[in-house]
């Protein structure tokens, strides 16, 4: 059915072209009520928010987002996922590109001034990922002379260099995936970021990597909402409900269960 594939590719090109031509427009296809919820997630974070090759979405954030949206009364086909890269999360909430964001979004005071947060629904911490057979890296203080990978513009690597191991050698890439490639090939020794993000990569190749398991910071992942959102209390209730009815644990186990990283206790929702 080669012809079909080519036809599909040409069709996609034509569709994209026509979309560009009419400058956005409304969502093609049918949405009967017109009542959709647009949720910002990561598209490139395996195990958390990930767009699969077939166009479907997977990950802990995705499952939590679906649970919350359904709790708010949306059907699964009324959920539209939008890619929210770190730099444009606040902008997307302010200008209405998305209705809420679950994208490894840490609750901080600076961000609270611009957007509202429900949750936290997860407490992550900075940790280190190494090859499974590595024994000499046991924590942030054991990285002197080691080659540590991190993602451009992220502070975790600087944190290690300034506060723990002054002699660490830093390599910056634009994706974690490249760090993983380099650690797998033995060119680099370790990478650092939030433990749950590391777990997502460890899950992809079970047995090849391990997480050192000595988190040395605390990141409260929250649900980002536009300032003054009326749904905040409802979402906080839904997050607490997910801790109790097992949905939270299931979302974790489905997506990160084989990473070798243990599920921590659920956090306490902060109704500020």
């Amino acid at each position, binding site marked *: 059915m080669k012809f079909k594939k*080519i036809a599909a*590719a040409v069709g996609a*090109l034509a569709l*994209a072209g026509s979309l*560009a031509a009419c400058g956005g427009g409304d969502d093609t296809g049918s949405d009967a009520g017109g009542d959709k919820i647009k949720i910002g997630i990561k598209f490139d974070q395996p195990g958390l928010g990930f767009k699969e*090759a077939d166009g479907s979405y997977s990950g802990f954030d995705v499952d939590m987002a679906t649970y919350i949206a359904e709790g708010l009364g949306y059907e699964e086909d009324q959920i539209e996922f939008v890619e929210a890269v770190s730099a444009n999360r606040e902008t997307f909430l302010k200008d209405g590109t998305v209705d809420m964001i679950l994208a490894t979004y840490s609750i901080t005071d600076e961000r609270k001034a611009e957007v509202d947060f429900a949750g936290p629904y997860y407490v992550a911490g900075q940790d280190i990922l190494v090859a499974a057979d590595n024994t000499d890296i046991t924590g942030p203080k054991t990285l002197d002379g080691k080659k540590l990978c991190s993602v451009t513009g992220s502070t975790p690597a600087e944190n290690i260099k300034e506060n723990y191991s002054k002699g660490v050698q830093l390599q910056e890439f*634009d994706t974690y*995936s*490249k760090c993983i490639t380099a650690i797998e090939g033995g060119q680099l020794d370790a990478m650092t970021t939030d433990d749950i993000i590391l777990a997502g990569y460890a899950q992809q190749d079970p047995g090849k990597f391990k997480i050192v398991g000595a988190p040395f910071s605390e990141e409260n992942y929250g649900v980002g909402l536009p300032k003054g959102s009326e749904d905040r209390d409802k979402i906080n209730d839904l997050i607490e409900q997910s801790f109790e009815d097992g949905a939270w644990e299931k979302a974790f186990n489905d997506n990160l269960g084989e990473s070798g990283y243990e599920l921590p206790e659920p956090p306490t929702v902060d109704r500020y």
Partner: protein
Amino acid sequence: MSASVLYDAPGPRGKALNLVYSAVALAALAWVAWIVYSKFDSTGQWEADKWTPFLESQTWENFLIPGLIGTLSAFAVGAVLAVAFGFVFAVGRLSQSRFISVPSAVVVEFFRAIPMLLLMMFIYFMQQPLGLDTSVFWAVVLGLMLYNGSVLAEVIRAGVNALPKGQSEAGVAIGLSPGQVMRTILLPQAVRAMLPAIIAQLVVLLKDTALGYILAYSELLNQINKLDGNFDNLIPAALVVALIYIALNTILGLVANFVEARTRRVGHTAGPVGHAEDPNVQTATAAGMPGGNA
């Protein structure tokens, strides 16, 4: 193969020697190819599951075609704006009024001297302080416009300067204003003569869209990251994208050759056709490191 002026047509001994050299060169090539092949093999780069995604229409729909659209839309908008920018500042720099020509010259020289990547980063970070929504697309496109537009301004200006003086004198003699002389006599001829150089610069512009990768603009190179995230095939994905780039540039190069052949045949200009004679133009295009044009 026409004989080069650098060496005599080889005699029997020379032919034999050439054969030996060829054999040695081929052996060296084969050796390098084998090393690359076996190393890639040992790290599993030839494994089928790294390559089969490229046979799936989904991969093209979700990754490569959106990347291609990203690259081509930045190219198209950037090219149109750069050509417009080039005309405005070429005419500005040729203006008889110093109040116009000096600032135009400063703008053109400034943007030619700054690395395009720094320009793009500057525009990217400048949007928020100016109260604009941060758009990486416009950072890339405006960076492309400012640099390539400045190079094109010099190309067009050199084209006008290469025209015989009699052309503008004749225009003035029949009572045309300086603007009319420029618009109706000089520019049409200069553009015709410089078309190959202009297209060569557009090939450069197409290649330069790849700088958008560094700013995380969703163009072809960025799809390598996404493909790698899905299929763990960094090297195969990069090879496929490189082939796409070479194909795109080859197409543009063919267009450039076709246009060059046409302008040569038609030859409606009063001035010298082509740009090799003019050192200014050579400098301008060499600065941009044009690719593609054979």
